[in-house]
């Protein structure tokens, strides 16, 4: 009994194997889920997985490393355009395309990361916001390569023959996206627990102290940016397969803002929060538009009601659930423990506090 327990301990306590076990369990569950639901639900599940990849990278950058990026939609565009260009006229295995997209967005991440390494807070936000607005314009400018406003189309990937002739292509794409999401989250979870992850947090919490402790701050910032850019690129590549078209209008500033919204609503700094945020991002808008269509209203009201409700939900969520869904869940779980008693009112009023220790996962 004791031997079995210690053997289980030896399996579970190292970070990697613990994460791998969890990932395996999650993968099995998701596989079963995707097989039970219809094609449209698989399509929505794919969207959740894609956003989870992007938000996981973004929550690492913003929550754990303290760099606010309002431009990750543009980095998704890099991955999507890489995919569309690679697939123009020839077929390539999905895994190859995804890896190349990760590389290309990682490269852009290095470029921008170095430029932005010295920027903090709203200055970095401003620079990344301009990136979000400017990068899609490159596609409009170089119409010949990037297809201009109409963009490039991507032929959907068809399931391999061994799955059967009437295996829905939506389910196959869901499997690819879910696999990518699970792999990304496992890798990032391991990174969080490693010394690199601790360096990220150290720089976020106190840059001067981290530098004095021997951490190369600029390199850490750039590394965090590159990792999150690569995640965004991977998400963008999957996005291209999922939506079938890669056009500038699909990667507007609002996409970048949606990603930031997702990580905050889900719970900043936590990978589980990134998943919650993606679920909210995909399902709440369709929920609100479904609600609005059941009422019989004049068109100018009916058209805009879903958006008004969505905006109101965001405001109310920030008022009532300031630490996001994961934060709320964690607090519920910690109820009764001694650490409960730290209320959000203990924060700083009115002064920049980009490093809230209350968020330490």
């Amino acid at each position, binding site marked *: 009994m004791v031997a079995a327990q210690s053997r289980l301990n030896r399996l579970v306590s190292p970070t990697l194997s613990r994460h791998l076990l969890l990932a395996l369990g999650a993968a099995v569950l998701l596989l079963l889920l995707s097989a039970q639901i219809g094609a449209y639900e698989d*399509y929505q599940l794919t969207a959740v997985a894609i956003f989870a990849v992007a938000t996981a990278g973004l929550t690492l950058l913003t929550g754990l490393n303290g760099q606010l990026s309002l431009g990750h939609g543009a980095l998704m565009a890099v991955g999507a355009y890489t995919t569309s260009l690679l697939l123009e006229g020839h077929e390539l295995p999905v895994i190859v395309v995804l890896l190349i997209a990760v590389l290309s967005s990682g490269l852009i991440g290095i470029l921008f990361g170095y430029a932005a390494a010295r920027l903090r807070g709203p200055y970095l936000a401003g620079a990344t916001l301009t990136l979000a607005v400017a990068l899609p314009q490159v596609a409009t400018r170089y119409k010949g390569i990037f297809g201009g406003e109409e963009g490039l189309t991507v032929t959907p990937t068809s399931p391999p023959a061994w799955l059967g002739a009437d295996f829905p292509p939506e389910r196959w794409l869901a499997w690819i996206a879910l696999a990518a999401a699970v792999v990304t989250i496992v890798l990032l979870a391991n990174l969080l627990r490693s010394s690199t992850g601790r360096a990220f947090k150290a720089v976020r919490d106190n840059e001067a102290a981290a530098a004095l402790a021997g951490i190369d701050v600029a390199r850490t910032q750039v590394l965090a940016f590159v990792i999150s850019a690569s995640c965004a690129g991977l998400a963008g590549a999957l996005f291209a397969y999922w939506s079938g*078209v890669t056009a500038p209008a*699909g990667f507007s500033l609002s996409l970048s803002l949606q990603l930031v919204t997702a990580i905050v609503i889900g719970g900043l700094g936590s990978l589980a929060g990134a998943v919650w945020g993606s679920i909210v991002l995909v399902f709440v808008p369709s929920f609100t538009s479904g609600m609005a269509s059941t009422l019989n209203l004049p068109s100018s009201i009916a058209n805009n009601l879903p958006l008004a409700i969505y905006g109101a939900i965001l405001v109310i969520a920030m008022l009532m659930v300031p630490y996001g869904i994961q934060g709320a869940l964690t607090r519920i779980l910690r109820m009764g423990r001694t650490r409960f008693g730290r209320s959000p009112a203990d924060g700083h009023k009115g002064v920049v506090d980009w490093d809230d220790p209350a968020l330490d996962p």
Partner: protein
Amino acid sequence: MKSVMDGTASWIRGIALVCVVGLLAACGNSTGSTNNSGTNTASAPGITATTITIGSTQPLTGPAAPGYSEIAPASNAYFQYLNAHGGVFGRKLTYDYVDDGYNPTNTASQTRKLVLQDKVFAIFSALGTPTHLAVADYLNSEKVPDLFVSSGCNCWNDVSKYPNTFGWQPDYTIEGKVLGQYIKQSISGKKVGYFYQNDEFGLDGVKGLDDQLGASSIASRQNYVPTNTNVGPQIAALQASGAQVVVSFTIPAFTALALLTAAKLGYHPTWVVSNVGSDVPTLTGLLTAFSKGAAGAQLLGGMVSDTYLPLISDSSNPWITLFKGIHDQYISSLPWDGNVLYGMAQAYTLAQAFKAAGRNPTRSSFVKSLESAKLGSGPGLAPFGYSSSNHLGYLGVQVDTIGADGTQSTSGPVYTSSDSGPISQYSGSTSSPPANGIP
């Protein structure tokens, strides 16, 4: 023994009866479109005995919404009128239009929802070129009829690639050719400049213009993107080039911005504007604040445009009377402008297509019937091009001009053309609406 024999005989009779009924039903369905009497059946996804459901993606919110968000409610108003007068073979037409915010990603997911979850019979009036390009492949691979795309891109006329997709409004290139011909004939000898939207809309139009005017003779070509409302540099460049005629392939907001900027610079060329951007009620609304001292009408006076539907202001036209009546009854909170007329005219064409497709169409029989039925042009001034080799809608336009007092009047005959062929005068006449406005 007798009872067993009886049982066997009735069993055989039953089978025979079922076979006969089945054969009759099969015969009925395979000829589909010609069976105009009889009972309604659920002959296709989205069609039940009592309803037909069609779907659409529209920019109901976002930057493209002003103006265009009126089109679907206008179509819906016509459908409500249709339903109140018997519907389509007694079925009620339900129009399920959803918002995509002019974002191709949203179009992709909303279209899949319409097809996979809401199971619509067809997609109707999907709006936007980049948005619809996102889903044209998907709809055609799922063999969903993709009817009357709200876009003048010639990309919808590709029978081999998109066999189920049909255009409706005149192709931008055809429009460019007719406008170019008008300039050549009626405003000759002047320097011409272009101001166009930097996407398929503007570029296709320019292709048609160049075909008639000669690409090398154009004094200046300026373009804009809808996300950037500062058109000062472009208008200034047109002024500097000495262009006395400016052809504008612009959406209404940018027509107004161009006019205002030109007024600021003291530049007053003759404006030749695509029908997309020349709706008089819309433009007047955009310029009213500047019309202290009648600057608004002044700005519009002398403008040349083209139309393929009766003029909004033509209250003597029976189609206008019909549609305005429906507008006043069902959607009086919306302004009466070109977008509403567009939506209703499209809806009328759909009603025509359903009537031609017969009582119990399937998706493929509907498409075939649209190709062969030679639909009347309804309120349109030009004929439809629908055939097994051509999926273009209205084949031509008629030039119109706006007078100094802001009233619009048509000028010259209706011309039809194709993307690469010659322009020919259309000598057919326009039709009147049927008595109760239902085809």
